[in-house]
């Protein structure tokens, strides 16, 4: 096992301001950036604020920016950096800082509330649901989301344009609409709810110009743009401009009911 001393710059401060602080700290074999943050807490900065939980890439709590890239601290291994390089850790840029590496992610919880919930199919009781694996595969990909909010943080629609936050839900919640839309038994349409339209009108789907930044930072490797956002856009466009598609969906629904 080999140890070495690494140089770190960690942003410290609060809503009133702050700056990068220099630290020199031991690093051991196999460690991840979160281990180093914990070592700083235990030995040099006991009040250094950071969020974390599972330390295994499953809960999505320890999101921050390492050398300017949005990442999970627990899944960023020290071995990917050159030993001579100074590593910089800063809080997520798109959200207001609370303290040190902890930001106010309330925006995301607000947007979650604005997505209409799953509508259970009328007439099917618990235990009566039948769905086939090939049909649940697509929405299951989106349910792998650990809500780390890295995609929300990196999406340039809000990252550099605070004013867009009102109208735009961000990739995570557009993907949530797509997931519900692809749920084989979601009965939104029967209840008079057009999920494609809500994505367009209420979640701001039109702001997305498919630059795929969200997909690039997703620690779960979910193909957010290709599999969720683009299909959602295609559907919304169909609905909006193609009266035949609209009519067809009405007819099918009636005969199926």
């Amino acid at each position, binding site marked *: *096992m080999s140890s070495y001393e690494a140089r770190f710059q960690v942003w410290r401060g*609060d809503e009133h301001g702050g700056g990068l602080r220099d630290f020199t700290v031991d690093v*051991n*074999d*196999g*460690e*991840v950036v979160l*281990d180093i943050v914990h070592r700083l*807490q*235990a*030995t040099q900065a*006991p*009040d*250094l*604020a*950071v*969020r*974390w*939980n*599972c*330390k*295994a*890439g*499953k*809960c*999505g*709590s320890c999101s921050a920016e390492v050398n300017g890239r949005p990442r999970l601290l627990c*899944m960023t*291994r020290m071995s990917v950096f050159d030993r001579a390089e100074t590593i910089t850790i800063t809080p997520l840029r798109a959200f207001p800082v*609370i*303290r*040190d590496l*902890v930001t106010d*992610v309330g925006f995301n*919880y607000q947007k*979650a*509330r604005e997505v*209409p*919930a*799953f509508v*259970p199919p009328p007439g099917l009781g*618990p*235990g009566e*649901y*039948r*769905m*086939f*694996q090939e049909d*649940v595969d697509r*929405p*299951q990909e989106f*349910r*792998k989301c*650990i*809500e780390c909010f890295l995609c929300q943080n990196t999406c340039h629609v809000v990252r550099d344009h605070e004013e867009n936050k009102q109208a735009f839900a961000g990739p995570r919640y557009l993907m949530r609409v797509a997931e*519900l839309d692809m*749920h084989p038994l*979601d009965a939104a349409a029967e209840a008079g709810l057009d999920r494609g339209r809500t994505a367009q009108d209420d979640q701001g789907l039109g702001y997305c110009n498919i630059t795929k930044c969200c997909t690039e930072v997703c620690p779960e490797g979910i193909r957010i743009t290709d599999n969720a956002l683009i299909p959602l856009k295609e559907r919304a466009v169909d609905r909006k401009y193609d009266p035949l598609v609209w009519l067809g969906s009405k007819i099918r629904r009636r005969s199926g009911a």
Partner: protein
Amino acid sequence: MSVVDRQEWDVVVVGAGGAGLRAAIEARERGARTAVICKSLFGKAHTVMAEGGIAAAMANANEHDTWQVHFRDTLRGGKFLNQWRMAELHAQEAPDRVWELETWGALFDRTKDGRISQRNFGGHEYPRLAHVGDRTGLELIRTLQQKTVALQQEDFRRTGDHESRLKVFQECTVTRILKDGDRVSGVFAYDRETGRFFVLRAPAVVLATGGIGKSFKVTSNSWEYTGDGHALALLAGAPLLNMEFVQFHPTGMVWPPSVKGILVTESVRGDGGVLRNSEGKRFMFDYVPDVFKEKYAESEEEADRWYEDPDDNRRPPELLPRDEVARAINAEVKAGRGSPHGGVFLDVSTRMPAEVIRRRLPSMYHQFKELADVDITAEAMEVGPTCHYVMGGVAVDSDTAAARGVPGLYAAGEVAGGMHGSNRLGGNSLSDLLVFGRRAGWHAAEYARALADRRPRVDDAQVGTASAEALRPFSAGAEGEAGPPENPYTLHQELQQTMNDLVGIIRREGEMEQALHRLAELRTRARRAGVEGHRQFNPGWHLALDLRNMLLVSECVARAALERTESRGGHTREDHPRMDRAWRNVNLLCALADPAGGLAATDPARGQIRLTRETTDPIRPDLLALFEKEELVKYLAEEELYE
């Protein structure tokens, strides 16, 4: 005394994992205004870490499965110490709780005919675990989270306020249960972000805080698992049950050191993975205990045939209950047949095609690739035991989840004791927290309603004491203490080392006595745990406060483990290696030595905890009749058999 913000609720749920959210949903649906308080962000609770699945006898994969078979497996797994009425309710209600999740939007993996797929797991006679790949806990927490939001949307439509009837106070910590006489009157909490104190007045409080693993060095548990609910119950005057039973999951990662303890799901074995020692031998065949001899294969050939033809072959011994597998791995390593980093080998690479592994075990593939540079489709994993779950917990009424002795206090999920006896089967925790989370929320709501306007009052003196206790770390060393301020991180590390070395997987009398001495020293030093900085999101301060809980709970584990002079489930004594039928019907209860709730650092021998024994209720005859007589003879004392 600073002014403390106060609010009024019907039911307060402490913890927002599976049990807490299920309780909150139930209480709100039954009309109670419900507040949930959780230490992390909403949706990050430790439940997300659960991998394998939810055990429920839906009989989708094997038509012979029934609640009775599930009940039997659960009692066998717990070595018949389970609070049997809980095990019965659990086995009966688990299928409904799983199906209900589908109506809230959950998407489980499917069988060919479109039903919920079920997988094999240790100790379960039939494939029984509803799952989503190896991320079932995430699906569960997300479904409950989204159901919570759906209820809030309903409330918004009705009242114009999302949080009018169900509110989540995220990143807040409860430090005391408040009481009016015997009865619960509310909770005292602080907001982690701002450091501000607040009081929620409520006649009913549901504890759903999970476990205690952070008192051990090698653990699969997250920082939240500091035994808060266990300690809150003790401090409120409710006893804890059978705290000596701590489950060491057999397969945690052992390398690199920074990930030591992180869980490797049992699904790896359920889906065909095998354990080998450094000689390449499948050693589990040598470790099948007498009580399980008839149920497990004797040869590799028979074990391998079982995956295809479970009706005519017996199960592979890799699928014994967790306590057996953990002890076997421990013994192999001790005998010098371990892997390079002190574990054993867990191999799926020679058992399944790479593509099947990536599909069925995606998180494991990812975890080993990212954190250990190991490709599990091409080479074996190195694994060893890790502290995973506490079977002991708040002593509760089986039907209502009410804590004993404190009206208005409820407990569900890992923080509650009894359900799993001396050892929990994999998959039984997710079903446990759904079944008893619902029951706790239901009965808490009923209790609050029945009180009408006769609600307990909040005592200002208790609020003052709780504030002073919470602020103490900021003035450590300043009030003429006998020593310099202590670093809470150092104290925590010493506590973890103590519990790991002296009250770990294999226990000895002398070591546990030593542990009690060290705990007493740590307790004295913890009174001087000091922090730098201010109250806003200060992890040093949070840890200093959590230390009280970890020390209390650790003493319970050590004291109960010293008392129980036998080996059973998650309690293994080197000096008493056999299971003793005379202990089968004995519960050990831990209570606070000073019932006034004071925590003065008393002398080590006496400590803070008083232990009492009680005889368990005899198992109901119709439930006993589910077992063959020959099997019961192995567990029950003579007089129990002939009653």
